[in-house]
């Protein structure tokens, strides 16, 4: 079990709220989730983030709502 640091703020990822440290970028979040940016698509507050090269400099903000999706089996 991890304890959120004091200087943390809430965001929502795929419908679930979690607290992340102040100053985290999107790349920091993906690394903590063990996700490969090439295999996923991210929507932030309803806007699709098309340019993966911006993830490392994109500072997350309090109450950001992220949707992280990928391709799964389907007809």
């Amino acid at each position, binding site marked *: 079990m991890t304890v959120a640091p004091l200087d943390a703020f809430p965001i929502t990822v*795929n419908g679930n709220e979690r607290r992340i440290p102040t100053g985290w970028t999107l790349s920091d979040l993906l690394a903590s989730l063990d996700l490969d940016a090439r*295999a*996923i*698509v991210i929507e932030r507050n309803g806007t*699709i983030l098309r340019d993966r090269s911006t993830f490392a400099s994109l500072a997350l903000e309090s109450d950001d709502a992220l949707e*992280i999706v990928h*391709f799964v*089996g*389907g*007809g």
Partner: protein
Amino acid sequence: MAHADLISPSAHTLSDPLPFTIAGREFRSRLMVGTGKYPSNSVMIDAIEASGAEVVTVAVRRVDLDRSKEEGILHHLDSDHYFLLANTAGCYNAGDAIRYARLARAAGFNEWVKLEVIGDQQTLLPDTDGLLQATKTLVDEGFKVLAYTNDDLITALKLEDAGAVAVMPLASPIGSGLGMLNPYAIRTIKQRLSVPVIVDAGVGTASDACIVMEQGVDGILMNTGIAAAQDPVRMAAAMRAAVESGRNAYLAGRMPRREVAVPSSPTAGMLGS
């Protein structure tokens, strides 16, 4: 390979006079397959290979962040070897379908989408109003829309007018395996549309696929008919053969139906005559 005997092409394969083309892109197989509901990823891969399909559909879903090691389908499927066609399955209104299509395009493979706007949970029949609305919006945004629809000619004509690059009427409801319920409707849609007609959903076994192709449609998309078979790899091989067989039968042109028998052997030269 374990199933090499199932996937090697017949020595007597006849070439198709018409290439299978959608939106200017030619595909090597008239059979398209889904990737859902397989007992395992390895069976799925072997079945897709045995089907000979080039177009392979996938769905867009949230990444499971609590997964142990559950992976997206691209960890199993070689995206260089197959044409990935994302669907909007599970969307019940135009807005959701448009959102899913945009997410799928952002994955960076292509701007094609198999558009589904479902209208009813029990039958999974399409909401044709929402479908038309989403088709117009996505076509305006540069998508190549392949629209899953019912077997209604008027809706099919409207989808073509709206810019769909292919219209995909159902044979029978998704996952039902009931085969083609209305061959007349499917034939009529094929005869009236200029864009390719690809029958999507309802094929339960190889004879269903063969009969669908005998109507003259351009192709078939199926998922459960293969994935839910006892041996999906063998069924995939059967479907491949059935699609080719039905296509050849359509091209060959069947004999006329008669209500009376006509002997196949000479009536002259019988003993004692």
